């Protein structure tokens, strides 16, 4: 490729990065603006910054519990999904049994199931059980999609560990379960941590289940944000402040899992 074309190409890439990041940067700036600057009809890129929106919305308006709810829900659903999903994925990676691939596909459909359809019966069932607006309801709902992500991703990671390692460990007198816990889990640790981060992100970002299955006590941050938007007179500085807090951990996490993103997002169909 000639040098001129190279430069054009690099220019395009830089423009794409700008397009990808500008909305976020604008929101970050808005969270630091006084009301008058945020509502200026000519966009203001330079302004006297203020940090007031963050304490106002999280402390005075009581959004801090929502933040901790988000953390509790995301952590619990990640933990539950790993606990149940990692052993199951190992069976899929190592065993042969009739109908295995069909069962595996069944796990996929659960991840693909449209939340809006699943949440209707779930809402009624959890309502009858008195679980609506408890952590249990949201954590279980989020585990329904995170569990299949775990099974799908971890199967790939386990398949990459040579079978000879299992055989050697069992020759040394380990049971199958012992081999799994003592030898394979440590080997799969990088995969497990990447999977955990992806689970956390998916649960943290989720809106629909959380919105319908919680009312007040266990509301997560994503559920609380829309409540700040009014038809008239939205306090955009505060909205932006909550949105920044809701997205910042995700941005940091994304850099941790960048190596495994393709696999995680295509259900292991593409190794990346």
């Amino acid at each position, binding site marked *: *490729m000639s040098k001129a074309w190279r430069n054009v*190409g690099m220019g*395009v*890439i830089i423009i794409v*990065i700008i397009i*990808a*990041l500008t*909305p*976020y940067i*604008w929101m970050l700036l808005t969270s630091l603006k006084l009301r008058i600057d*945020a509502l200026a*009809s*000519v*966009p203001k890129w330079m302004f006297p910054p203020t940090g007031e929106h963050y304490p106002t919305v999280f402390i005075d308006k009581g959004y801090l519990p929502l933040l901790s709810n988000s953390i509790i829900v995301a952590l619990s659903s990640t933990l539950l999904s790993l606990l149940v999903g990692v*052993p*199951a994925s190992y069976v899929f990676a190592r065993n042969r049994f009739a109908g295995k691939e069909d069962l595996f596909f069944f*796990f*996929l459909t*659960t991840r*693909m199931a*449209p*939340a*809006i*359809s*699943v949440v*209707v*019966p*779930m*809402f*009624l*069932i959890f309502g009858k059980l008195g679980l609506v607006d408890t952590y249990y309801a949201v954590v279980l709902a989020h*585990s*329904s999609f995170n*569990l299949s992500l775990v099974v799908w991703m971890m199967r790939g990671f386990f398949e990459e560990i040579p079978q000879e390692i299992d055989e050697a460990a069992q020759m040394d007198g380990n*049971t*199958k*379960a012992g081999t799994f816990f003592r030898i394979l889990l440590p080997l799969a640790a990088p995969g497990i941590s990447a999977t955990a981060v992806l689970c956390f992100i998916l649960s*943290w*970002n989720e*809106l*629909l289940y959380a919105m319908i299955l919680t009312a007040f006590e266990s509301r997560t941050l*994503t559920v609380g*944000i*829309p409540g700040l*938007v009014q038809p008239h007179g939205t306090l955009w500085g505060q*909205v*932006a402040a909550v*949105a920044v807090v*809701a*997205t910042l951990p*995700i941005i940091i996490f994304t850099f941790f899992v*960048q190596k495994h*993103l*393709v696999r995680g*997002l*295509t259900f292991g*169909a*593409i*190794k*990346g």
Partner: protein
Amino acid sequence: MSSNNWKRILLDKGTSPLFLTPALIIFLVLLVGPFVYMVSLSFTDLSFSQPGRDGNFLGFANYRKLMRDDPIFWESFLTTIKFVFAAVGLEFLFGLGLALLLFHLIRGQRFIVTLILMPMMMAPVAIGLMWKLLLNGEFGMLTYYLRKIALMAPQTAPLSSYKLVLWTMVVIDVWEWTPFVTLVILAGLMSLPREPFEAAIMDGASPLRVFWDVTLPLLRPIIALVMLLRGIDAFKEFDKVFILTGGGPGTATELLSIYTWRINFRNWDFGYGSVVAFMVYLVVLIMCSVFYKGITWKRGIEELRA
């Protein structure tokens, strides 16, 4: 036999069932159960807003209503189809172009790729709010510049114009998900074997021919998979549109998921709402089984190659 031996048998032979059962139970309880319940509800008149409608059996009345007397459902279906095709089509074009560019210029240097990826990692709710702020009719930053360079008439606002609003949703979806298509195609490009390219170049093929006759055919399975994945997700789109327009103005952006939400959680009509939810489920299931076939198909190709 000593108890030690029994333990050993349990830990050897018993491992697989023991490992698999909890996952199966959770799936049955969280997905199969609700699915069956949803289907059974679809034959009833259960509603929380009208007295006397406490789950009486109706037969297929709800289904007849869907087929014959609910133009809004079908309108919403059409809106969803438009949204899916426009968004996924554009995401494919931009994603493929960007992936090729990244592949040839920076070979997928991770830091730059991750920067481009950011939109798809953030909470869709936050994305909805960001764009609501950017596209506000009075002080939106993007609205201001779009009017300034005369791409948009003064007074029009992308979120309240009946004609523009669905395409605005498409643009935002393209902004959010092109990175995903890029990422997957880029991964595909990096995994391609080199020999066919070298052979084609030896034969003196032009870059365009190489792309058309070598790159594209080799990428086809991956492109099909990523399009289908995006298609399924776009069909289920809820969060962004819910935050940005709530389905309005009028029903201009009332996607199926929003319509389902409205019937169930605004009208509290769970009988009819279950039929609608079931229909959405059905479409996704069909797309899923195509995806499944795609994966087995791709595995077959890989085995052929190995």
